[in-house]
């Protein structure tokens, strides 16, 4: 028994996650306004997404298609569905109701298999519209003390898919793994850019605790404001501990919504069940039922590319099926950062898989955007140099760093320029040899102790290598040749 398990005794966590994902559509869910992050406030707006009197929503076909792609990737079935109105007052919600799917969502009943082999059930993945964004000005940015608030409606009406898991998650690690895997799937479907930091993926967690072996659920709390995998893990750890302490002290957990305070590293109560909004859901009369025809559903399912799990399996396969856990983590990183091609191409060129994987998962993944632009053949060549001993691991990493910074290039030339190797020495020695043969008088003079001609010889080597050689390295090599002759 691990110390942690011992400390928490016979308690078990029961966690379900709700992940909101902004869809990468060209336009918003119910109007033709651009769906784009970061534009000047209130520029992507129209009567519909401002909820002006008389305006009406029209459903975006591309959003439905992306929702179906997500559903298919999560093994859900597509059902005839309808939209509801969720009624509550908030300044950044233009109509003071949100159009959302309620008890008849588009996708139901799927699952997500995690890299550790565990499976988390998916209750539903439904479509809804996003709200605008409020900024409280003055008074420390808090709503209560601010002088005034500014609302940006560019985000109002942006399509979201909310993915609701079964309460199948049992640890912080599993929760992080779930969100990370889900992010990979959302990116792979083309539905989302998966950027949590920009808010295009947002997570709410429901957590309760119970005695191991109990079939009954405890009273749960919902935690909001989880903006990263790190805060998700920490919030769950904190909240589980809080609930266990309450129960062990003979007290009860109150069902409520709690806010994760990142700085204070704790959750605080937002509102209890009694104070919970009555959203007065009812079917949205301005929209008609959504019933995608089966041919469309089949076409969408058939157009799905490989999911992260398939790609991990492929890499493990070319690596020779090694199941070492360290390597699985590296494979996970490579797949999440979409660097599969680097590893697969390197192996294809005869490079050892484990080395290619390590460089891709560590050095390349540290600068993922540059790494995705890298020519996989250049990466393969570099790994081959390192594998053959022509570059030390330190040198190889340095050359890789240079490749990433430059956005490409020839690894051999970079290594030579840096005066690295074996490889560089071999090549440089050949050039110097030619320069000596072509300039016997200068060489004799140098051998005779005239150091002034060294500059001319170095200059000729530099010219022959088109400036790639390192002058100091050439000088050192000339001295070595003189002393050994």
């Amino acid at each position, binding site marked *: 028994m691990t110390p942690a398990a011992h400390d928490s005794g016979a308690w078990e966590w029961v966690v379900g996650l709700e992940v909101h994902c902004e869809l990468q559509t060209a336009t918003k869910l119910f109007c033709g306004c651009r769906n784009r992050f970061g534009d000047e406030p209130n520029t992507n707006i129209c009567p519909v997404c401002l909820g002006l009197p*008389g305006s*009406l929503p029209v459903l975006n076909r591309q959003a439905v298609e992306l929702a179906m792609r997500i559903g298919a990737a999560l093994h859900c079935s597509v059902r005839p569905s309808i939209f509801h109105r969720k*009624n509550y007052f908030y300044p950044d919600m233009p109509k*003071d*109701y949100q159009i959302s799917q309620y008890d008849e969502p588009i996708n139901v009943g799927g699952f997500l298999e995690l890299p550790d082999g565990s499976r988390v059930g998916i209750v539903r993945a439904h479509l809804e519209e996003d709200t605008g964004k409020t900024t409280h000005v003055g008074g420390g940015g808090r709503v209560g003390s601010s002088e005034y608030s500014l609302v940006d409606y560019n985000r109002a009406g942006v399509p979201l898919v909310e993915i609701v898991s079964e309460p199948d998650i049992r640890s912080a690690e599993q929760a992080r793994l779930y969100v990370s895997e889900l992010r990979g799937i959302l990116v792979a479907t083309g539905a989302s850019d998966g950027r949590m930091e920009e808010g295009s993926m947002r997570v709410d967690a429901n957590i309760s605790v119970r005695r191991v072996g109990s079939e009954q659920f405890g009273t749960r709390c919902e935690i909001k404001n989880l903006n990263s995998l790190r805060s998700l893990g920490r919030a769950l750890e904190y909240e589980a501990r809080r609930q266990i302490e309450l129960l062990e002290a003979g007290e009860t957990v109150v069902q409520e919504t709690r806010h994760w305070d990142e700085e204070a590293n704790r959750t605080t109560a937002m509102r209890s069940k009694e104070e919970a909004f*009555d959203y*007065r859901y009812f079917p949205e*009369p301005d*929209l008609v039922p959504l019933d995608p025809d089966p041919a469309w559903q089949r076409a969408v399912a058939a157009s799905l590319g490989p999911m992260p799990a398939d790609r991990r399996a492929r890499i493990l396969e070319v690596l020779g099926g090694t199941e070492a856990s360290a390597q699985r983590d590296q494979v996970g990183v490579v797949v999440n950062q979409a660097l599969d091609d680097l590893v697969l191409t390197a192996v294809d060129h005869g490079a050892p898989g484990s080395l290619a994987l390590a460089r891709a998962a560590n050095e390349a993944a540290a600068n993922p955007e540059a790494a995705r632009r890298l020519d996989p053949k250049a990466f393969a060549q570099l790994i081959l140099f390192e594998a053959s001993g022509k570059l030390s691991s330190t040198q190889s990493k340095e050359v890789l760093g240079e490749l990433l910074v430059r956005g490409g290039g020839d690894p051999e030339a970079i290594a030579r320029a840096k005066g690295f190797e074996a490889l560089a020495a071999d090549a440089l020695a050949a050039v110097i040899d030619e320069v000596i043969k072509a300039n016997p008088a200068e060489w004799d003079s140098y051998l005779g102790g005239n150091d002034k001609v060294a500059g001319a010889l170095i200059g000729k080597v530099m010219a022959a290598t088109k400036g790639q050689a390192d002058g100091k390295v050439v000088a050192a090599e000339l001295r070595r040749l003189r002393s050994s002759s």
Partner: protein
Amino acid sequence: MLVAGELAGQIRRRERSAREVVTEALDRVAGGDAAIRAFVRVCADAALAEAEALDRRIAAGEDPGPLAGVPVALKDNLCTKGLETTCGSRILEGWRPPYDATVVERLRSAGAITIGKANMDEFAMGSSTENSAAGPTRNPHDLSRVPGGSSGGSAAAVAAGFVPVALGSDTGGSIRQPAALCGVVGVKPTYGLVSRYGLVAFASSLDQIGPLTASVGDAALVLEVIGGHDPADSTSIDAPVPRLSDAVEAGVEGLRVGVCLELIDGVARDVEARVREAAEALSGAGAKVEDVSIPELRYGLSAYYLIAPAEASSNLARYDGVRYGLRVDAPDAAAMNKATRTAGFGAEVKRRIMLGTYALSAGYYDAYYAQAQRARTLVTRAFDRAYAQVDVLLGATSPTTAFPLGAKVDDPLAMYLSDVCTIPSNLAGHPAMSVPFGTGDDGLPVGVQVLAPALGEKELFRVGGVLESLAPPIALPALGALGSVERT
């Protein structure tokens, strides 16, 4: 009385100019509307400019369309770009929509010229046009009486002869009942036949825009112009509008007409008598007339007063003081919402928001809203059974002729009963028309209601055309006298 079709013909043939026609309409409004108050806003300059532009196009050989130069009044819940649209409410004071409703665009591209916005019950909630922030509209036939509502301004503008055509909206009878009380033709089309884009919503699943006109033929003409699919309204029917103008002249030979007992039970004796006479007239014109009973219609009123307020409570949430219209400042957003809505909405609107909020609340939804939807289905199925027997139904539009101002303002239930005969068609999404047919014992107009199944507009207009040709004449309001009536 002015007939839009003839007027447009004269203008297209250059026998009269649009400018002349529009100027006359504006003069009539200037002379008579101080007493009637059909308009909350007249846009004389814009109308004259449009008329002149239209005349230039005609001079250049263009044909501006079937409503060329016809002056129209628009109910003030239809969005007009740059022209204040207030729905008879303080809460929308000063709001100028940045866009035109689809029907407004279609009227314009058919050559019609908007001369103003017509008064209405606040957010179309009412049956007398007394619930307006602008004050009540009066019935041109008797200024001490209401014009009906909620499209009372539209009905009065046509009845007074200000304009031959007005648009209204009908959620539970708001076109037909004022049409009946003012002695004009009013049509509520099949749900989805006319785009709702730009109609400020009251109850989205019931609202339909339709014409109020001086003749059945004009109603057909206008419906042909404003009807038809609109991609901006998801509930719009994707089918062409039938040629209704032809139907007006087609007669009723062989048509099966059912006098719906539930739509004459309990209505005033004189109103019932006119419905019976209308049935006889149709019979004389070759229709097969029989009595039909549809007992389920009696659930209509209760179902309506749950569904309509429920949808309204949500539709009217957006008037929160944040983005447009009235704002009453307060220390925080929630207090500002409350202060704004308290000051901006009238009593009837508040009553319905509360009714609707209650009907949708957790724990009450099934007993009220869901139950009302079941009753709605029941009404629709009952209609379906009746329409297996007959092609159209006949009944009263309003239980009485126009009632005196103030008679029902303090008795909401009595006011709600004004719509008892019109509500079932809204619940079912079916078309219905009110056609003037004689007068009551008080000499005021009576409207006979013709109902048809979904997309049964052709039958509706066949019956309407015949009833119009056989109706006893109604005395026209004495326009000359209107100007001298004291403004109240």
